[in-house]
């Protein structure tokens, strides 16, 4: 076993796939930043709100006001430098830090694929993605044809985890036996050409989509790994993501996954891609560059230990929900960072009550006074948002001179086509509750059973 691992770690592979991945990743991220900017979301998400929801442990992350644009500029620029491979290590570290900082500024916009990009860019810090076909190589007049196999494999493993865990998360009774939430979502896509009026409301179609989605997620990493099935699998990748792009507003995610899946292909394809980029660039490679056979990382041991720790965490974090007693979809304790994508149609309504603990006098809060519509929507059904907002309200009214401030919430939530039921215990003063990793005892029971992982 040990020798097998040792042999594996000495194996090498072409540097071309990782170089192409670097270029694709950098360009997509650049496009993603520009897109976000042009849609005006920097303003509406990061600058306009009076109050920002923060991840537990990252409350110190401050929003930057108008400097947020500068942060996006840095992020976009570093993505471009990653693409061309100029001062790669510095560029990818800058990208990782700036992108992650952006995400940490506001929890409301949490998306699995933003998290994916964050950890992928972290992983890329340790990979020799600039050793082939890069400006760095051109400037140093040296490039390497081959790199250790584990470097490209680590990206495949991460992509594999994303798919496979997304598939595992679909092994639940709502998804498989009630076809929820697709049964709620698909009929509203009635205005899609051709299939809108014919398929989207069909019961069998909801089940077909649910089950094939589950099989797709569980199996696609293996079909991509296996050479003989790779082309067909890639065809499925394209079809699946384009189709979901048509159905749902999932932004960059489909393209990120399609381009990322190219890493599974052999070097032939990547060399062809590099050749065509070379042709596009014209005289770029005119200067003679020394090409060495194999690049061997200097801090191999350190890097391998970091990656081992990284992947151990990646494998474990999605299962942390097992440490919590109640229904995951209801409490959302351990829900994020686990590749649970498109699993819930959850809507809530939260009405906050500010009480003077001594006199019992109270009044209700108009959420619109404090939150953007997007924030209010996300807050209404996620307990950690509700708690954080309750504290914000408590602090706000305390600073306004209100005495003995207690904050209560009357809230309801509806999950996957069930009627809404009371969500948070309205007798608990949330202002006195602290955020922690412990189970939140003030979430009311779900009174139903969603079986499965």
């Amino acid at each position, binding site marked *: 076993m040990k020798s097998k691992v040792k042999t594996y770690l000495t194996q090498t592979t072409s540097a071309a796939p990782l170089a192409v991945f670097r270029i694709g990743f950098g360009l997509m991220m650049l496009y993603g930043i520009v897109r976000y900017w042009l849609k005006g979301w920097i303003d509406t998400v990061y600058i306009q709100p009076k109050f920002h929801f923060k991840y537990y442990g990252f409350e110190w992350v401050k929003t930057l006001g108008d400097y947020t644009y500068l942060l996006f500029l840095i992020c976009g620029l570093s993505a471009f430098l990653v693409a061309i491979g100029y001062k790669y290590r510095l560029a990818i570290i800058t990208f990782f830090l700036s992108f992650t900082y952006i995400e940490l500024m506001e929890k409301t916009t949490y998306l699995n694929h933003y998290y994916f990009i964050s950890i992928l860019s972290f992983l890329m810090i340790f990979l020799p993605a600039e050793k082939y076909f890069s400006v760095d190589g051109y400037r140093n007049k040296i490039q390497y044809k081959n790199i250790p196999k584990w470097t490209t494999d680590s990206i495949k493993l991460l992509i594999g985890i994303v798919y496979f865990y997304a598939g595992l998360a679909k092994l639940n009774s709502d998804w498989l036996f009630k076809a929820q939430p697709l049964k709620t979502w698909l009929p509203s*896509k009635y205005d899609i050409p051709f299939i809108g009026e014919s398929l989207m409301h069909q019961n069998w179609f909801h089940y077909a989509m649910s089950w094939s989605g589950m*099989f797709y997620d569980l199996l696609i990493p293996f079909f991509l790994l296996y050479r003989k099935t790779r082309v067909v699998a890639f065809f499925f990748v394209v079809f699946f993501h384009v189709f979901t792009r048509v159905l749902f507003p999932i932004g960059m995610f489909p393209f990120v996954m399609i381009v990322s899946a190219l890493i599974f292909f052999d070097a032939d394809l990547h060399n062809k891609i590099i050749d065509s980029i070379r042709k596009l660039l014209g005289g770029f490679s005119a200067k003679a560059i020394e090409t060495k056979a194999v690049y061997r990382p200097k801090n191999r041991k350190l890097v391998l230990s970091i990656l081992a720790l990284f992947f151990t965490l990646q494998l474990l974090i999605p299962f942390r929900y097992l440490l919590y007693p109640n229904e995951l979809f209801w409490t959302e304790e351990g829900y994020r960072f686990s590749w649970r994508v*498109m699993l819930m149609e959850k809507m809530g309504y939260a009405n906050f009550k500010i009480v003077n603990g001594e006199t019992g006098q109270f009044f209700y809060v108009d959420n619109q006074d404090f939150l953007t519509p997007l924030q209010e929507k996300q807050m209404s059904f996620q307990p950690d948002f509700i708690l954080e907002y309750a504290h914000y309200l408590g602090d706000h009214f305390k600073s306004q001179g209100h005495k003995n401030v207690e904050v209560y919430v009357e809230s309801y939530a509806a999950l996957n*086509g069930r009627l809404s039921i009371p969500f948070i215990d309205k007798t608990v003063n949330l202002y006195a509750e602290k955020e922690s990793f412990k189970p939140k005892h003030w979430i009311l029971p779900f009174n139903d059973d969603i079986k499965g992982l």
Partner: protein
Amino acid sequence: MIKRIFGVVIVVLVVLACTESDDTGSGNTTNDTFDRVAMLTNIADNIIIPAYQDLDADLNTLVASKNAFITEVNQANLETLRTDWFTAYKTFQAVQMFQIGKAEELFYKDRMNVYPTNTTLIENNISTGNYVLSNASNNAAVGFPAVDYMLYGVANDDVAILNVYTNANYINYLSDVIDEMQSLTNSVLTDWTTNYRNSFVVNTANVASGSVNKLLNAYVFYYEKELRAQKIGIPAGVFSTTPQPLLVEAVYKEDNSKELVLEALNTVQDVFNGKAYNSSNEGESYKTYLVALNRNDLVEVINARLDVARQKVQALNSNLKSQVETDNTKMTEAYDALQMVVVSLKSDMLSALNVSYVVDPNDNDGD
């Protein structure tokens, strides 16, 4: 070859998944796709347009009785004018929620029913005689609440009120405000009948500008902010530290402000059930839409909660101002009952119909 085999395997798996799903289904079969054009047509032709026509007629009557009053200021003409004003105000409750199309463009409800009305602004307009009623800055000095003030609140008793109208400035302002209400309503109605109706009923795209979305958003917004909060919640003081009896609708007439709430609530339920404005016929609406999505459970809950809310409102003193002043608990109970409907509309119905309530400005992977 092997490539093909695996291709076939995947296809088979997908097909298997489909057939298997039919066996494991919970028995819920969604019916044929819901006819949204029929729903929009029913709501437009049998609810919205007849309501506007009724209001238009009421306002024509109001203009006539106002003309009679300003020609001859006397108690009898004042009484007629007051009656016609309140009749129109009740009818207005049936259209306020349709803040779409021309109404949205003209800021119709903001120019018809902003209360509390700003008496200082009104008196200032009257004394200077220098005003543009269509100006947004005058929204709190026009519409039904301004007329409320001018017919009931401008002086202490009827003798004094009639005396006020010996001043031509008051006559002019009253006349201008009522004429403005009539002409505004008429332009909204005309737009519906000549133009908007036809584009409205076919614009079924599930986008922010689609008719289903706009109508539903206006409906839920109206119910939550204008019916539940403004008519009951704010006067009952649920958003403030103390009750605010002076913030009820029709505060100067005061003796029958409850009727306006009941009218509004009835319209909300009628629209939900697709019940025609002029008859008891029911057509396609949110109710049948939810039924088509197998959400009969939700239909029952919503109607039951609306019924409870109506009972709670009916239990109130017909004078909401004095209800707040004497026994505010009943008001907050009514508020709580109205609130339960918001829960059903916002967290259940919007979710079930999957129409975004706010224009979702962001990517979403449904996590």
